[in-house]
């Protein structure tokens, strides 16, 4: 596609529920990144893939967070047993030599 597509656009989850957030990168982009942006804050790095390999997951805040990109294209960020502090916008970006392109994000609200 022309840009990075994320779905759903909004997600409301009850505390303790599992959620899955999807990212469709730009076709052909090798690198894919996930960021968490809390209200009023800058985006914080979560994890990074090069093709299907997860090269860096140092930013994942706990073992409840899991990301995958099994075929080197679409990626899913999964959060298990959601908690209120997980409420944030989750941004996905893909990159090529031209630069980084961000999706519009998924706004997760945990109630």
């Amino acid at each position, binding site marked *: 596609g022309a840009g*990075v597509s994320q779905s759903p656009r909004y997600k409301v989850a009850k505390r303790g529920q599992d959620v899955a957030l999807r990212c469709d990168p730009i076709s052909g982009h090798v*690198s894919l*990144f996930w*960021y968490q942006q809390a209200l*009023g*804050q*800058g*985006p*914080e*790095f979560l994890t*990074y893939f090069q093709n299907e390999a997860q*090269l*860096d997951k140092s930013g994942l805040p706990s073992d409840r967070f899991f990301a995958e990109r099994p075929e080197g294209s679409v990626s899913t960020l999964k959060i298990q047993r959601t908690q209120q502090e997980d409420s944030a916008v989750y*941004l996905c*970006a893909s990159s090529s030599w031209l*630069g*980084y392109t*961000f*999706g*519009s*994000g998924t706004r997760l609200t945990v109630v």
Partner: protein
Amino acid sequence: AQSVTQLDSQVPVFEEAPVELRCNYSSSVSVYLFWYVQYPNQGLQLLLKYLSGSTLVESINGFEAEFNKSQTSFHLRKPSVHISDTAEYFCAVIDTDKLIFGTGTRLQVFP
């Protein structure tokens, strides 16, 4: 690890006035710097970037930033702002393939 600091969380300014948004980076041998803009409920859009070469970089909508190695700064400037420039602005640096963002500066332009 690379990092950036945005000292001003909010910058109020009147329309047609000049503005400067400050960004300082942690010193390193080589550094790649970016400014992104985020309008309400939207994703991040690249405003401009410094990779190498000329230390003054410009965007298509009148913003410019100057890479200053001696002061480890990459301040964003515009000589005359418009109402439509109201947004959140993020400075970012690359650290081992991933973008590291500052905490952001909210530019509020008043009529």
